[in-house]
Each structure stands twice: as C-alpha cells, then as structure tokens.
C-alpha cells in the first residue's frame, strides 16, 4: 500500500518529511532552514540584549555597583560578538534562505544539504561563545575587536571565542557560496540580472563580500591562536611582530563586515518602500550600481578605524578621502528612496513604518559616519561614546529595524496569518522612542569626553548615562512585545490573502498563496 501511495503522489510532489525534532535536524528545505536561522538569531539577540542590559545597569550610576570591571569587559566583548555574529548576520542569512528562492522563482537553494550543515554549525558556535562565561578566567574581555596583546593575555575564554569565530566563519562562507550559486544559476526564465528584485541584488553583492573577507578573519584569529599557544610572534613586538598588523588584518575583514550587515538591509527597505508607496523603485539601476560601489569602496577604507593607531599623513588622508566617498553612493540610495515615496500613494503599515524609521535614523548614523571619517574630528571621538552612538544608529536602527520591517512584511507569506497591526505599530513607536532615548544622548557623552568600554565614569557624565540606561531597559522590554506578536501570528490570526499589500510586485506575492507551500516553484514561473 505504501508503495502505491508513494507512486500515486509521485516523489517530486511528496510533502512527506520527518516530523518532530528530526524534521528540523534533517531538513534540507530552504523555508525550514530560514526559519531556524531566524529563531537562532532571535535567541542570540535576546542573549546579547541581556548582556546589554547588564552593561547599562552598571552604567546607570557612577561607581561600581553590579559588574566588577573584569566581568563588565566580558559583557561588552560578548555583547558585541553575539550581536554581530550571532544575531544580525544569521538573521540576514535567514531572510536570504526564505526569500531568495521565492523571489527568483527557484524551488530551493542550490546546495540543500550544505544549507543544513551551515545552519547547524551556528548553535555549536553560539554555545561555545555563551559557555565561555563559565570557564576559568571567564569569557574573552578584550572587546569584540580583540586586539592583541590584550587578547593574548586572556584565558580559555579567548580560545573558545577563536574557535567559535572559526565555526561561524565556515558557516558564513558556505551560506554565501550557496546564495551566490542559487542566484546565478536558478533564476526563473526571463529574470535577467537587471530584473532581479533589489533584495536579491544586495544579497548577491553581500555574499561576494563575505566570501572575500571571512577567510581573512579566519586567518587573523588563527594567527592570534598560534601567538597564544604555539610560540609565534605575529603580533608580539618582542618577537619581531607588530600589534598594529592585527588591526590592519582585522579591519580588512571588519569594515566590509559593516556593509555585510547593512547591504541586505538596503535590499529589504528597497522592497518595502515601493510596495507601500504603490510606485516602482526609483532609479533601479543606479541602486544596483550604488550597492556595488559601496561594496568595492568598503574594501579600501579599513584603516579609518585606526586613525589614532599611528599612520603616515598620506595614509590618514587616503583613508579619509576613501571613507568620505562612501557617502556618495549611500546618498544616492537615500535620494532614490525619497524619490520613490514622492508622489506615491503611501500607506503606513508596520513594515513601512520601520522602513521609514530605518531611513530617518540610518541617515543620522550616516552623518555621524561622515563626521567620524574626518581625521581631526575622529582623533577626538575615536573610542568614545560618540562612536558607540554612531554604530548603534547604523546597526540597530539600521540593520535591526530593517529586519523588523522585513519580518512584518513577509510574515503573512511565511505563516499565512496577518500579524496584529495595532501591536506592530506599538512595537515600532516604542522602539523608536526608546532607541533614541538610549543612543542619541551618547553622542553628547562622547563629545564631552567619555571613553567607551569603561565600567565607571566621572560624575559630569551621570545624567546622560542614566537617561541612556532607562532608554535601554525600555528598548529591551519592547523587543519582548515583538516576540509576542510573532508567536501570535504563527499560532493564528486573520488569514492572510495571497497579496496582502497592494503594491507588491515580486514573485512570492504574485505567484504563491499564503502561506507559501512547503515546496514552491517546482515548475519555474516565466518572468516577462
């Protein structure tokens, strides 16, 4: 009977898959894997958020109250590592897994089994990172940039971090190769490169950046490992090495990494703005070229993180000019989004609110970025709270807000249910308010001279630190509301139509029901 049953359905259309936990362990389905990526990153987001709450609780008042300086440094270090490598990056890969095949009309990712492997490496790496708090000597405490010689001094926690970074890097490289192969080979007939949705374009470019720079990171952490344990002296002056060489190699990875975390965000916003403006994206091809120029420029600006490390004048000038140049393609993007909204017929559902919030706050982060690019000013603000404010404006209200926007935008397609619009709007406005309460004041702290990564500060910084901490607690709590909204939407709610947004034009809305079936596009659609 079983055989007959199988024949009757034909293997190609068989929706059977293992149930329970084995479904998730063994799955090769891009939707399941995308879902796991997103849940993993949200879990890490909560862990990293918990660490942030600890940091802000300690900084609520001057004096040492909750975290001793050693533990405080572990908190800041792991907060950075977990948010960058555990929360933001996997979340975008989760989006790529769900959306790239749906948006290019492919049945799945190109390497389905490797896809499973690249996901399941992540919990291992995440566990290594989190468990490093409980080993003798505690977690790594040299900052998320783990500059030697300080990171050469650390204990077992640093080694766990190094292995964790190795594993995360391997996962990212496999994920990117998969994305590149899928996009280049599996597009529906008629979908030329210049007809691809913007989100797919940004991910294609991001994936190339990842393949370029993740091996560099793996190399530099390996050099650190051999310096620590095998007697090499890459970064030890006493043995003929140079601590500053670490910074050059690290930031050769680290700066493109910044754009790895923001280019897919640009992609998500470039899908949402036209949809809710009911008008095509303005300047599609200039958008593609701008993304590519940002990616290329991002590889030649790394030393702007090192203006105080000591560089020749010509070096400082080169990196200043190159960095400032990035403002041009970034500006083009912002102008294009504005022109897309201009004379549209806009409505303001939660995804659109988060997308507009993204543009508004990302531009503020962009301004402070230009200010940080100017060498003389950077000399003053480098390693102060000004820099903290700057990169939280581009990473939280940039990358994270775009992720929220994307989740609200695609939840109806993923779950088949509408999320609660009222609660979604609450989530947006509370996030917006508390985010600015937390980070806007940090600009002033930095200008006034408060260094970053300190557990205690002079009383002149007390009032703004208190405001910032209150904002941070509010922002943290608000994200539990997001969890509630998402769980509610998965478990039920108003049925989502195939096309809940009138302005959407990409294949997942035009060709697939909501929720998208487990196997979609077994026969590729024709794109005209």
């Amino acid at each position, binding site marked *: 009977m079983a055989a007959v049953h199988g024949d009757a359905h034909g293997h190609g259309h068989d929706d059977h898959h293992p149930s329970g936990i084995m479904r998730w362990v063994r799955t090769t389905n891009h939707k399941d894997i995308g879902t796991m990526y997103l849940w993993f990153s949200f879990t890490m987001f909560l862990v990293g958020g918990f660490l942030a709450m600890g940091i802000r609780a300690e900084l609520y008042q001057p004096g040492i109250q909750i975290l001793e300086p050693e533990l405080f*440094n572990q908190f800041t270090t792991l907060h950075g590592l977990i948010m960058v490598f555990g929360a933001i990056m996997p979340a975008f890969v989760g989006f790529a897994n769900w959306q790239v095949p749906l948006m290019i009309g492919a049945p799945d990712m190109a390497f389905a089994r490797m896809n499973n492997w690249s996901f399941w490496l992540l919990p291992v790496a995440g566990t290594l990172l989190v468990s490093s708090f409980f080993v003798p000597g505690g977690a790594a405490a040299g900052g998320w940039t783990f500059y030697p010689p300080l990171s050469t001094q650390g204990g077992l926690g640093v080694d766990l971090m190094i292995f964790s970074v190795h594993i995360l890097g391997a996962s990212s490289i496999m994920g990117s190769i998969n994305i590149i192969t899928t996009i280049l080979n599996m597009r529906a007939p008629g979908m030329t490169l210049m007809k691809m949705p913007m989100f797919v374009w940004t991910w294609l470019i991001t994936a190339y950046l990842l393949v370029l720079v993740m091996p560099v990171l793996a190399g530099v952490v390996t050099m650190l490992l051999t310096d620590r344990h095998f007697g090499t002296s890459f970064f030890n002056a006493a043995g003929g090495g140079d*601590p500053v060489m670490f910074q050059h190699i690290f930031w050769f990875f680290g700066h493109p990494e910044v754009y790895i975390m923001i280019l897919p965000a640009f992609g998500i916003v470039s899908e949402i703005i036209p949809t809710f403006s009911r008008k095509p994206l303005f300047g599609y091809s200039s958008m593609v070229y701008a993304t590519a120029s940002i990616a290329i420029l991002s590889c030649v600006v790394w030393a702007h993180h090192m203006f105080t490390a000591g560089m020749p004048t010509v070096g400082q000038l080169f990196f200043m000019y190159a960095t400032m140049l990035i403002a041009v393609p970034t500006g083009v993007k912002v102008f294009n989004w504005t022109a897309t909204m201009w004379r549209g017929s806009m409505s303001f559902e939660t995804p659109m609110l988060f997308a507009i919030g993204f543009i508004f706050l990302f531009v503020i982060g962009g301004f402070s970025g230009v200010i940080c690019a100017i060498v003389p000013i950077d000399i003053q603000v480098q390693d102060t709270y000004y820099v903290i404010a700057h990169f939280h404006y581009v990473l939280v209200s940039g990358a994270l807000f775009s992720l929220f926007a994307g989740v609200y935008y695609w939840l109806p397609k993923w779950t088949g249910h509408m999320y609660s619009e009222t609660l979604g709007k609450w989530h947006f406005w509370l996030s917006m308010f508390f985010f600015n309460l937390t980070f806007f004041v940090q600009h002033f702290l930095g200008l006034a001279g408060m260094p970053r990564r300190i557990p205690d500060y002079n009383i002149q910084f007390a009032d703004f630190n208190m405001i910032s901490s209150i904002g941070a607690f509010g922002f943290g709590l608000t994200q539990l509301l997001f969890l509630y909204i998402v769980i509610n939407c998965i478990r039920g709610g108003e049925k989502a139509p195939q096309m809940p947004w009138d302005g959407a034009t990409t294949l997942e809305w035009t060709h697939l029901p909501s929720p998208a079936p487990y196997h979609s596009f077994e026969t590729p659609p024709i794109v005209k």
Partner: protein
Amino acid sequence: MRSKSVVTLSGISALALYSSMAVGSKYNFPEPQSVIARDIYDQHILLMWICLAIFVAVFGVMFYSILKHRKSLGYKAANFHHSTAVEFIWTIIPCIILIAMAYPATKTVIAMKDTSSPDMTIKATGYQWMWGYDYLQGEGEGISFYSKLSTPRAQVENKAPKGENYLLEVDNRVVVPVGKKVRVILTANDVIHAWWVPALGSKQDAVPGFIRDTWFTADKPGVYRGQCAELCGKDHGFMPIVVEVMEAGEYSKWVAAQLNASAVKTSMHVENK
C-alpha cells in the same frame, strides 16, 4: 490624526530639549585649549551645520511627501521610476560638499602630524594601569615619574561621596609650560593604551614595542584632564591623564623642585652604598 500630532509634538520637543542641552554646555567638545583642538572644534561645528542643512532638505521633502502623498487622502500614485539628469545632479552635489569638507580637514591633518622642532619632548609609557613620564629634552630634561589614579577606592565602591574630579585625578600631574610646543612620544609596556587629553586635541595610541608621537601647544595655564582611550584590561577606566599647564616662571620653579628632589634621592642612594 490627533494621536499622530501628539507623537510628532513630543518627538519635536524631545529633540529641542536635547539640542538646548547641547548648545553651549559641557555636552559639546570641551573648550579648546590648543590650536589643533580649536581647528577640530570649528570643523565639527561647520560639519554639524552642513549635516543639518542636508537633513532639513532631505527630510523636508520626505515628510512633505509622507503628509501629502497618502493613500488615505486619496492621492493617486505617479509612475515615474528614473531620471538620469536628477540622478546625475544628486551624485555631483554630494561630491562638491565632500570636497568642501575635506579641504580644511586636510590642512589640520598635516598640521597635527607635524611633530618637528618641539620646544620640549616628553615620553609617556602606558602600563596596566598607570602612566609613566620621562622628560627627554628641553627644560625639565631628566625628570621622571609615574602617574596613578588618586581617587580613593572607597569612592569607587560608593562608600564615600564622589568628588568633582572623580576618576580624573592623579598623584603626579604632567606639568608643561604654556605656549611651548610639547612633543609627546608614546609607547607601552604591556598592551596598547591611548593617551588622550580632549581639551588639547591630542589622542595617540601607545603601542608596546613601538614609538608613536603627537604634539600640543597649550594656549592657557590650567589643568586639563583625559583618560586612556584604548581598552587595556580590567582597570582601563581607571588610568586618567592630567596635564597641568604653567606660566614659564612657575614651570621653572617646578622643574627645579623636581630635579632637586630626585638629586636628593640619588645622593641618598649613593650614600647608602
């Protein structure tokens, strides 16, 4: 509609509050005390004005559109999607603005990197967690001391009230004469530290095994405080830098006292042998 205007109003008033706090208070760069710090301060203000102008222009357009071009007002969407001329213009204009920003910055970079012909040279060495100073050249040559945080532990542990210079006070200040070009040579003993005095516009990493340098010329006598600016381990937040700038005469007296004290120490040392 009403709830939206309430939100807008509260947003605007919050911003206004922030800005009023920022203007002319301690929440900007500290009052510049050297020519480089003055340049930095002025360029920052200039850039803020440029940013503000761009901000108003871009978001003026965007928020006008958000208010007027709404589906709820029955606005029908246009269908344009590119314009080479417009795109060309908004690529060129930012380039011009950037050149205008880069020009003064370049001049300052060249000036701040020029550590040649100083009146005096001091070597600062970063330790976990204090600074060591050696006067290498110029008036005061031969003076050498360590400079450690002098805030009592009880204040950090909240067992005593915190003073005005909490965490920004040291046992031995770096003393320099007013109006003289001071070159600071930096290195470190263990990990990377950074020597930073905001009012003097001077920040430079101290890298173990290597020599870096920076310079300043203080405009006025006074006490200028800064902190280590590169994460250097547990007590990174507890190794401040205090520079005391004195009139030439007073400085000479300070030098004499220091050299005398160390001569006494040395002779005692010799006698003991």
